[in-house]
């Protein structure tokens, strides 16, 4: 077995991803503490949908943060980050569609943000998939 070239899969921290995970966590904490404020988009929605959305969002955010911030064991941390991102993406999708169903197109600005967040999560999850595959192939060589 000969030593091969250096494989870089993680790179520096991604601030938007990290902070969106924090935002998701903070939103969940805020919901658990106080509930949605009057007049906000969320207050219009049925409470079971909101609860489901926050469960997914909170779980995904927490798990994703753990994976992002874990110091060593790159492949393990990347796997956890990917799982968290996908679960958070499910929560975002549920939220966006519920808002779309109940509020309609008046909530377009909110829907744009949610859509962007969703696509970012899926994109990063795909990146992690490629990175893990590269790591596995490098480990086999």
């Amino acid at each position, binding site marked *: 077995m000969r030593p091969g070239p250096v494989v870089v899969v993680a790179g520096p921290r991604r601030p938007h991803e990290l902070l969106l995970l924090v935002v998701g966590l903070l939103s969940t904490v805020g919901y658990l503490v106080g509930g949605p404020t009057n007049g906000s988009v969320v207050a219009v929605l049925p409470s079971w949908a909101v609860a489901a959305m926050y469960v997914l969002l909170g779980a995904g955010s927490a798990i994703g943060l753990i994976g992002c911030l874990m110091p060593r064991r790159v492949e393990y941390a990347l796997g956890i980050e990917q799982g968290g991102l996908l679960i958070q993406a499910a929560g975002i999708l549920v939220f966006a*569609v519920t808002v779309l169903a109940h509020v309609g197109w008046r909530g377009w600005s909110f829907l744009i943000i949610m859509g962007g967040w969703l696509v970012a999560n899926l994109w990063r999850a795909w990146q992690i998939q490629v990175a893990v595959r590269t790591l596995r192939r490098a480990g086999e060589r």
Partner: protein
Amino acid sequence: MTWQIFVGFLAAALGSSGLTVLIQTLAGRKKVRADVADTLSDTALALLQAVRDDAAAQIELARKDVASARLEAVEARNEAAAARAEATAARREAMAAAAEMRRLTSEILSPNATIERLRSLVEPGPNGGAGVRTY
């Protein structure tokens, strides 16, 4: 209504795929560790083998050096013995020549010297010396 069901399925698919990835990561971490340990030990073994081969090559070279040095020592000893033998032979010849010279000189310078006596000394015969050849 149907598109909402479709989106519901989509969300369920996303969530379950996330969960699957999580479970696979958690379940596979021992295997990753084992693979890493395997790779590390393979690397260590390769390095060890390289060191071993290097050391064997060095030992071979040292052995060759020692053998050639031994041969040279044996040759040098032989030459010294030959030189000593030659020196001893040369000394013996020199001493014989000196003795002969002393004998001749004493005969020549003695008061009893006569031509016949000297001639009998020089010519080979029962009385005389080894015979001096005049070229």
